[in-house]
């Protein structure tokens, strides 16, 4: 992700393209976002605070943050390891595996939800044998986490693998010649180079998990105060016609994501300045 640390043109010459861009983005991005905030604030601050303070809203936001945090922790480790293996080792089927681990981006999330249900659910392939033992991840927080791990898996990979691919072999070889072990090489040579990728990958994973809907709605059972994530809460409240309740949480989530990506942009910008 590169940013305009050094704009090519400045001053009056930028005015036209910038205004054209803004005009195009107005109905596509800016106005829909503004609508959320306008509707959230329509009833005044006290309505907004009451809507946000509802126990279900509070639970939904907390639950979403926890799931997103857990999904990020797991996928940072698993995604980095996957990128490392795919980038540094030659083996048959590597190409196929690369395609497979990137698939979650292309599969509709609803399909992810149904496939998880058909695997783990009480009538699923594995669930059929697990259910009598009292193990049932679906319709429980574990099921939501499984869905989010699946859906967000490629983001870490996408952020880390390009860096690994470009990392010159000579650094590692140099480390080995002075007697570094494979772990030491990873820890002191590869990991520092990965910092930016790890950070942006983690943030992307977190943000996508926070907003995940399609798979979650199927595997969670959509139970208030149990498995209802923030997006599910927003949808349920909107469908029920409680637009204030829906928009209070929606606006909070949108603001939170905005801050996340603002940080992401700043950190990556600094990284590219330091390196470039």
């Amino acid at each position, binding site marked *: 992700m590169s940013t305009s640390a050094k704009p090519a043109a400045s001053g009056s010459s930028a005015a036209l393209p910038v205004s054209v861009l803004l005009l195009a983005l107005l109905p596509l991005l800016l106005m829909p976002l503004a609508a959320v905030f306008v509707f959230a604030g329509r009833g005044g601050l006290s309505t907004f605070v009451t809507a946000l303070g509802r126990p279900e809203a509070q*639970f939904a936001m*907390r639950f979403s*943050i*926890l799931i997103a*945090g857990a999904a990020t922790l797991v996928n940072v480790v698993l995604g980095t390891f996957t990128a490392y293996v795919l980038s540094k080792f030659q083996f048959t089927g590597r190409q196929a595996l690369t395609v497979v681990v990137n698939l979650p981006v292309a599969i509709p999330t609803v399909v992810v939800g149904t496939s998880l*249900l058909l695997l783990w*659910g*009480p*009538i699923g392939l594995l*669930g059929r044998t697990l*259910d009598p033992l009292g193990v*049932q991840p*679906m*319709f429980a927080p574990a099921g939501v986490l499984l869905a989010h791990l699946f859906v967000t898996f490629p983001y870490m990979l996408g952020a880390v693998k390009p860096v690994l691919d470009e990392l010159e072999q000579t*650094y590692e070889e140099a*480390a080995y010649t002075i007697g570094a072990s494979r772990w030491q090489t990873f820890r*002191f*040579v590869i990991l*520092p*180079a990965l*910092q930016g990728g790890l950070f942006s990958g983690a943030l992307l994973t977190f943000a996508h998990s926070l907003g995940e809907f399609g798979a979650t709605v199927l595997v969670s*059972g*959509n*139970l*208030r*105060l*149990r498995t*209802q994530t923030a997006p599910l809460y927003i949808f*349920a409240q*909107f*469908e*029920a*016609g409680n637009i204030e309740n829906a928009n209070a949480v929606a606006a909070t989530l949108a603001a939170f994501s905005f801050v996340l990506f603002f*940080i992401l942009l700043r950190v990556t910008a600094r990284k590219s300045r330091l*390196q470039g």
Partner: protein
Amino acid sequence: MNTLPSGARRVNWVRLTRLAGYGAAVGAIALYAVWPWLPGGRGSQPRTIVLYGFSILGEVMNEGVLPAFQAGWQERHGERVEFATSFAGSGTITNQMILGVPADLAILSLELDALRLAEAGVLAGPTWSELPHAGVLNRTPFIILVRPGNPKAIHDFADLARPGIGVVHPDPLTSGGAQWAILAEYGSALRRTGDPEQAYQQLLGIWRNVVAQSASARGARTQFESGFGDALITYEQEAIYDLARGRLEAGIVYPASTILSEHIVVAVDRNIQSDEEQLIQAFIEFLWGDPAQQVFVAHGFRSVTESLNSANPAFGVIDDLFTVADLGGWPQAKREIIDRLWQGQVLEEIGR
């Protein structure tokens, strides 16, 4: 590019402060997220009833019936009961239950969904018929909502079949309300004319005019409110409950003849643990008791205890109110009207 760490590193205060700032922010968010689960916060684990319900029951249960039961139970037993609830289209929750959601109880829009649960083995059989009123918790007739002032002059179901009328309809695949609506659309004409062909023509005419479909009755109303269509066929309860709160931006049209929907409670015995039985039994009895039934009436549902219904003056007068029993019961109505006529012929005809 970073390289192997050199021995002597100068302390970079700017970097440290920034890291501390990020750390504090992340810590604060994490603390917020886990707060309710920190030890010492709350007392003993409350007992939980998992309740699924069809879409329009959300408010009356969450705001009226459940808190009343919680308060009464707390008073008598000194114990907190929590409800985990989920409200969606009746067909949706039925499908979720077949897939195995851990519902203790469910309130379905129609007996047909209960029959599906029995068929799928979720229920041991028609267990709801052993409950009070054969499982019927409350009722509400189907009416028509139109735009304020009724600009298209809609006075009965027959008017919805006129060309140029836009009808918002929930989807019969997932919504119980939609299936009731189909019975109303067909049944009202059948009872008026006694002619199955004319009844079919009315059903077909209305479905030619359907401009938007939603997964639940609630969703359809939200669609109607956001400006789709000229008319919505829905539960009377929805309309008069909004009217009472001053939130109805539509006119209510009472058809001369319409169906009275009957909503069914099912208890999923296989999900009810033995130490929960007494609690659930008490809750079931509470549902049919006067206090709960009065809450239903106040929220616009017609009670199964007829004497309570006079408490709500908003209930409209309908000349010919029929039930699914008048159409031969749900299995027959489903087979003949929904499957054969609506799915087999109407959808075919309008090319969907």
